[in-house]
């Protein structure tokens, strides 16, 4: 509350969305209210099938809301034409469609499509914006590479550069890190946060990468079946426990101490002592092995690493688990 000084780039008011399937109506999202702020990286999180893609489609003007409206800077998107909308919102989609013959430079130049004349010829301003988009995403060196000859991570950066060259106030990305390795995921998300902060754009990212989203996002939107959209700083949502709304059932829980998702710890009957991080990993391994009871106390030591169980000593967790399993079920 009380943060209304921030500039609202996109606003949803009482939004109800759904599909007509043959003759039956299927309501997907009902009565949503949301605000997307300029200069912030917002992550939209929610389980599969909750209606994230539907919401994105509505924001892109591809489906009409049943009720309520979406405003871009106080203008309803229904009153904006396709061309006008394209000047305000750019997207990066999940499906990797790309022509192999095209170079990175040509791809980024396509981002200027809504701003150019009938033949798509770039003027000097357009070329400057394309250059800037390439350098902002740090892929200027890739300009003349063909899309078929660069890595998935580079290609995704090129797609982001294209969206940047489209130069709208809003950028929407649908799972931009889905096919990427860990380092590339971080890089892409940090790039997006920088874009939001430095260019004052409102960036909305649909993602399932909770860990990386917590590290990089300025704001979370949590979408869950039958609840209103919850918006807030990731840290606030973690402390208040609202983040657990993402997790149906009792099996998983968000660990406030470790900042990540964990299996709900069952009733464990064993004692481990020693340095904190060693205890954590040893406990984790024992738990994963399905062992819930160890008779004697376990002592873990650092430098050199060793585990003592009664008189037994082990130099690796592997050894300990092997021993414990034999104790429980000697036939194996």
């Amino acid at each position, binding site marked *: 509350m009380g943060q209304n000084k921030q500039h609202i780039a996109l606003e949803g008011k009482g939004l109800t969305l759904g599909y007509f399937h043959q003759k039956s109506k299927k309501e997907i999202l009902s009565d949503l209210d949301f605000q997307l702020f300029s200069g912030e990286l917002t992550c939209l999180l929610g389980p599969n099938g909750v209606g994230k893609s539907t919401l994105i489609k509505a924001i892109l003007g*591809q489906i009409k809301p049943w009720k309520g409206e979406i405003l871009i800077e106080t203008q309803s998107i229904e009153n904006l034409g396709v061309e006008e909308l*394209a000047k305000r919102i750019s*997207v990066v*989609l999940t499906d990797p469609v790309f022509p*192999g013959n095209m170079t990175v430079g040509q791809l980024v130049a396509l981002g200027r499509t809504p701003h150019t004349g*009938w033949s798509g010829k770039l003027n000097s301003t357009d070329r400057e914006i394309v250059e800037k988009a390439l350098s902002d995403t740090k892929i200027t060196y890739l300009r003349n590479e063909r899309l078929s000859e660069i890595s998935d991570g580079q290609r995704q950066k090129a797609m982001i550069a294209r969206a940047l060259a489209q130069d709208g106030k809003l950028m929407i990305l649908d799972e931009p890190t889905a096919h990427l390795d860990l380092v590339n995921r971080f890089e892409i998300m940090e790039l997006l946060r920088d874009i939001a902060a430095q260019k004052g754009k409102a960036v909305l990212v649909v993602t399932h990468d909770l860990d990386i989203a917590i590290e990089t996002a300025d704001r979370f939107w949590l979408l869950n079946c039958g609840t209103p959209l919850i918006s807030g700083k990731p840290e606030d949502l973690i402390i208040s426990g609202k983040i657990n709304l993402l997790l149906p059932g009792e099996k998983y829980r968000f660990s406030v101490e470790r900042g990540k998702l964990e299996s709900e710890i069952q009733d464990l009957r064993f004692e481990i002592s020693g340095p904190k991080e060693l205890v954590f990993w040893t406990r984790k391994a024992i738990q994963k092995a399905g062992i819930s009871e160890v008779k004697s106390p376990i002592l873990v030591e650092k430098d050199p690493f060793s585990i003592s169980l009664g008189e037994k000593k082990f130099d690796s967790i592997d050894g300990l688990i092997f021993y414990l399993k034999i104790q429980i079920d000697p036939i194996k």
Partner: protein
Amino acid sequence: MNTKRYLFPIAFLLLGLSFLLNLSLGSVWIPFGEIVSGLFSSDWSKASWEQIILNYRLPKALVAICAGIGLSLSGLQMQTFFRNPLAGPFVLGISSGAGLGVAILMLAGSAFGFVLSGVNSWAIAFAGVLGAGLVLSAVSLVAWKVKDSMTLLIVGLMFGSAVSAVISVLSYFSGAEALKLFTVWSMGSLGALGWSQVGILGMLILIGCIPVFGSIKSYNALLLGEAYAKSMGIRTEKMRWLMIGSTGILAGGITAFCGPIAFIGIAVPHLARIVWKSSDHRILFPASALIGAILLLLCDAAGQLPGFASTLPINAVTSLVGAPIVIGLIMKRNFSRDF
């Protein structure tokens, strides 16, 4: 980059050469110099050469250029619009439609036991345009209902098959003479047209090209798929109508006047992509038009058997000459990656 700059001048030069080659080849060999001086200063050393060139070979060469341009441009539009390297000008059932029109004109009489008088080239062209237009309208009706371009592609193919089946039925019941006539038509011919028909064909090609030039930007955006194109402010629904209209006029008109001509429409856009190494339609449209015209001129020249008065049917030549070239080029490069 440097070699790229010379590609268009080279292509224009090749076009000129193949045009001259096309004019000079035939049952009588006419030297290049004679043709040039004859065309520019009406100075012919033999009156028969003037007759041959002006009344037979020149209209045929112009038809080859028109058909080459038209078929290549409609093929390129189809391939980009449907994001499918196998799409060609006839995937929406246009050639089958024209075939149906002509088949009804030529075969129905003999099949149902009455005689249609006046089977001349005008009537054939008219029937072809009518048939192509009919099938195209049916496909358009579907296009109006379906949102997805892949569905449209499949519906077009199905229409084509259904129409071909009707032609088969007509062929089955028709007499031998009519059947021979229809078979000859279906092999395609560039040389059967007089000057007035060449004029009309040229007009149709010009009209069909207008929507192409109007939507170069949209075709470039479509390279990223329909969803991205929409997000960049392209009205894909409007484009679909322009595409259907343009290919209908181009491919429909050509099929009506010359009969079906295979291979050019599918292969030429790929050749243009390979030669120019580009997917930018500002380059691909003129490049495809040039290659299409050159290739059809050469195919027609290749069909002129030396020493014989007759020519091979153009539809057979395009496939015989063209298919090995394209297979060779494709085997060398990773084709689907370049698309």
